[in-house]
């Protein structure tokens, strides 16, 4: 006999104004209760994904277009599967195989998509701000799936969700983000999101790949835009000391070609996460990476598949979090 406690306290949606975003562009304008609502909804979605029939009818009759101007495997697949699991019709548009090659502008492309009656446009673009431009000119909801060096809000939400899955809460956790912070949209969105949920963030990398300070309006408490700024250090041991989570970023080859790194070898020698260095963090600390991993560069092969790695969990969380976002922005009247 199995008695299952319902455990249904009044959830965040009813306690507050619910999800108030028309678009998901970055986490800087997300309120804490909205982040909590995304997580709570993702819990329900994880439940759908665990069934034999991984499909619910919530978005039947809605359509989602993924418009990618940059290469992607996991983000695009994740959005596609998320839409399909909620019964939406999903179309994938790859810039390199569309009229974009004939010189069609972003605005023309999204206007065309709008005219076809699409409900959600998921955009990845190499220019920072491109999804903001799209959101200004069309009515369908726009989700930013990565814009230039600027933001990748769904990645940050899935990273935070993965951490919450293990620790229950993010409040007070120490998170070290290591690597090419300067050019990382993942790091930028995570810094916003993690600060809002009360985690303490340390950014670490070589001086040429770190911002000298975190931009924002500083108040008398030293807070920027009302949030504590991340700590910045060049010293990996200092960054990892006592960390609950170590998040490594992908090192892009063009950084070295651009003269920001003397050599790959030097980066590896000072910043690669190895089993020994992971030992500087708390015992059982989580190792994360947004993927794809340059094995042997930012992470050694043995930590990628080590017991502390939750890289595969991140991918699984991504599906649930993106289902939650699609449901929250497209599940009702527009």
């Amino acid at each position, binding site marked *: *006999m*199995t*008695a*299952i*406690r*319902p455990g*249904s306290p009044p*959830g*965040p*949606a*009813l306690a507050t104004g*619910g*999800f108030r975003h028309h678009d998901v562009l970055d986490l800087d304008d997300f309120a804490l209760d909205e982040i909590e609502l995304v997580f*709570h*909804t993702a*819990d*329900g*979605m*994880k*439940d*759908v994904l665990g*069934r*034999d*029939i991984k*499909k*619910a*009818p*919530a978005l039947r*009759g809605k359509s989602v277009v993924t418009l990618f101007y940059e290469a992607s495997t996991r983000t695009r697949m994740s959005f596609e599967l998320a839409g399909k699991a*909620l019964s939406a019709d999903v179309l994938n548009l790859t810039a390199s195989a569309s009229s974009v090659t004939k010189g069609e502008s972003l605005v023309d492309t999204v206007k065309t998509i709008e005219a076809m009656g699409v409900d959600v446009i998921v955009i990845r673009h190499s220019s920072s701000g491109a999804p903001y431009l799209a959101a200004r000119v069309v009515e369908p909801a726009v989700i930013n799936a990565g814009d230039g060096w600027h933001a990748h809000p769904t990645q940050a939400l899935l990273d935070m969700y993965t951490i919450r899955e293990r620790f229950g809460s993010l409040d007070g956790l120490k998170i070290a983000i290591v690597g090419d912070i300067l050019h990382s949209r993942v790091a930028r969105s995570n810094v916003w999101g993690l600060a809002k949920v009360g985690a303490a963030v340390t950014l670490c990398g070589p001086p040429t790949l770190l911002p000298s300070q975190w931009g924002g309006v500083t108040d008398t408490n030293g807070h920027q835009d009302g949030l504590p700024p991340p700590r910045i250090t060049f010293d990996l041991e200092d960054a990892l000391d006592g960390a609950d989570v170590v998040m490594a970023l992908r090192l892009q080859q063009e950084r070295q070609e651009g003269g920001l790194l003397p050599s790959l070898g030097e980066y590896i020698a000072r910043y690669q996460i190895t089993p020994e260095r992971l030992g500087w963090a708390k015992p059982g600390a989580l190792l994360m990476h947004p993927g794809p991993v340059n094995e042997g560069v930012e992470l050694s092969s043995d930590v990628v598949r080590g017991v502390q790695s939750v890289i595969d969990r991140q991918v699984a969380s991504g599906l649930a979090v993106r289902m*939650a976002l699609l*449901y*929250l922005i497209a*599940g*009702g*009247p527009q």
Partner: protein
Amino acid sequence: MREKRILNGDDIRRALTRIAHEVLERNRGSDGMVVLGIRSRGVDLAERLGALIRHVESAGSRVEVGALDISLYRDDLSRRPLRPEVGATRLPGNLSGRTVLLVDDVLFTGRTVRAALDAITDFGRPRSIQLAVLVDRGHRELPIRADYVGKNLPTSLAEEVVVRLTETDGADEVVLLTPEKVAQ
């Protein structure tokens, strides 16, 4: 709003006890039965019904209890300004071939039950699905009826039926809220 109490704690207990007996009588026991509550108050009622069924069938009833979330199956998603909150469904194993006793607090338009039937279909093919509700307030919009009813309560559309349960609201009662204009 004028508030009138329809059932108190004892009334609710008696109604649920009667339903437990009716369920056992109709099904000749509770073998392979799953009592499935619709979130959120239906789950509390399902827990109680499961316990009552086990109590009546002292010779080791193996009835199991689960929780069903139907928010992703609603047919009014595109009409509601606020998305219904998505909760988790908890099932005690596969539902195929079993008798499912679906439990909710109030039966009104029937749309929640319609959504619940769709949700259950995604978890397998039960041998039969029966419906138990604490209050049937009428005004069905779909051809759905309950097999077990705690209290039939004729209402007007302007009225509201509120079920309060100790688990979530601190006390057991069912009240009918009538707007002053209608009450006069």
